[in-house]
């Protein structure tokens, strides 16, 4: 597991144990998980290893008719973490918005992760809903409708307030870097990286809600949804009988 994943998972666990905050798996994708970003949910997935959402290249605003922009997502609190990887060991909430964690091993003592949560304000969403309809001819929407995909909107994120370099305290590193792996081309990838720099404004975890499309250009984001709900009304998918060969 990468250091980045370690950190985002520990963060989600700390902020929202047994909740619906989804840790981001890949640092490279963080820009596609900002508020209003549209994501897809993997069709067949499990609670056991998560990774249920896949980024797209679009935001909700991209697929709406032109109009006024919504207000920026609101900041609902800052948090500060020290030695994130050890959060589970001695995590302790001092005051409602600050979490200080003492660690024993793992990240370097100097690593402190400062994060904030940003969420789409209900009023901003209501106004957007009133003012802007779906751009029904948008190619992305057309494609998604045709494929019968369910779309989700990122509504809340936890992001970094400052750039931070996290370092691993180096246990078990190096033990796989044996010549044996060279033919496999694994030398570089098996050696753990010892540090990762997370930029300012990097999304570490997020919450989504399902986008629902009614008719041609009406849309909504209900508060409660379940597995049987579909973004696009059923019965609109063309039923071609193509074969796909695996090999």
């Amino acid at each position, binding site marked *: *597991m*990468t250091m980045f994943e*370690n950190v985002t*998972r*520990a963060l*989600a*666990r700390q902020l*929202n*144990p*047994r*909740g*619906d*905050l*989804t840790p981001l798996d890949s640092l490279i994708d963080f820009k596609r998980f900002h508020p209003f970003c549209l994501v897809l949910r*993997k*069709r*067949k*997935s*499990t*609670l*056991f*290893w*998560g*990774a*249920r*959402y896949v980024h797209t290249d679009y935001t909700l605003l991209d697929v709406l008719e032109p109009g006024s922009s919504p207000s920026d997502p609101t900041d609902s609190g800052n948090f500060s973490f020290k030695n994130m*990887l050890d959060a*589970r060991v001695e995590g302790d909430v001092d005051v409602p918005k600050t979490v200080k964690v003492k660690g024993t091993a793992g990240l370097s003592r100097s690593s402190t992760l400062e994060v904030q949560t940003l969420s789409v304000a209900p009023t901003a969403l209501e106004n957007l809903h009133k003012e802007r309809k779906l751009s029904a001819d948008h190619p992305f929407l057309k494609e998604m409708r045709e494929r*019968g995909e369910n779309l*989700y909107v990122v509504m809340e994120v936890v992001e970094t307030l400052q750039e931070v370099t996290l370092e691993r305290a180096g*246990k*078990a590193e190096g*033990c*796989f870097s*044996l010549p*044996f*792996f060279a033919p*496999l*081309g*694994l030398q570089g*990838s*098996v050696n753990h990286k010892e540090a990762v720099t997370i930029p300012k404004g990097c999304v570490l975890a997020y*919450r*989504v809600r*399902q986008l629902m499309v009614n008719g041609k250009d009406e849309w909504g984001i209900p508060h*409660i*949804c*379940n597995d049987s*709900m579909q973004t696009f009304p059923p019965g609109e*998918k*063309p*039923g*071609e*009988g*193509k*074969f*796909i*060969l*695996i*090999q």
Partner: protein
Amino acid sequence: ASDVGEMHEDFKTLKEEVQRETQEVEKLSPVGRSSLLTSLSHLLGKKKELQDLEQTLEGALDKGHEVTLEALPKDVLLSKDAMDAILYFLGALTVLSEAQQKLLVKSLEKKILPVQLKLVESTMEKNFLQDKEGVFPLQPDLLSSLGEEELILTEALVGLSGLEVQRSGPQYTWDPDTLPHLCALYAGLSLLQLLSKNS
């Protein structure tokens, strides 16, 4: 709507879930299983291609398209349940790093998947609900059948999922944050072992 977060289940639930899916794959004909194994062996280590296949299968299921496995003398048509199960395992395999995927192929060649599966299963069974990091003794006979190369291969494979095995003791370090990765590894190993059983 979002049910990602933390898992509330125990190892038994995971094992049953994986068994349900492997049973669907088991229903494939020997030719179908062999074809699937060949396909996967070629794709493991190429994460992007594996993800593309996952997406294609998802799309096919959504649209009700038929999917076949290339095989001789005749291509094998996949049932919806089989596609569902394959998709489940693709989800697990794509969680693993490319290096791990390559290590799986190597382990397949060396026929050490059963030992690796037993190792992962045994440690998860004991620690699944353990939410604190710790060092625990490892049953010595779990690794005793492996030679030096196989041991290194196994240490690397599980180590990259966060399960650090130390030969002295022997013992292993349990890190609860790595559980999702280990679950995915467990599922991946289960599938490959099943597919390679009769090949």
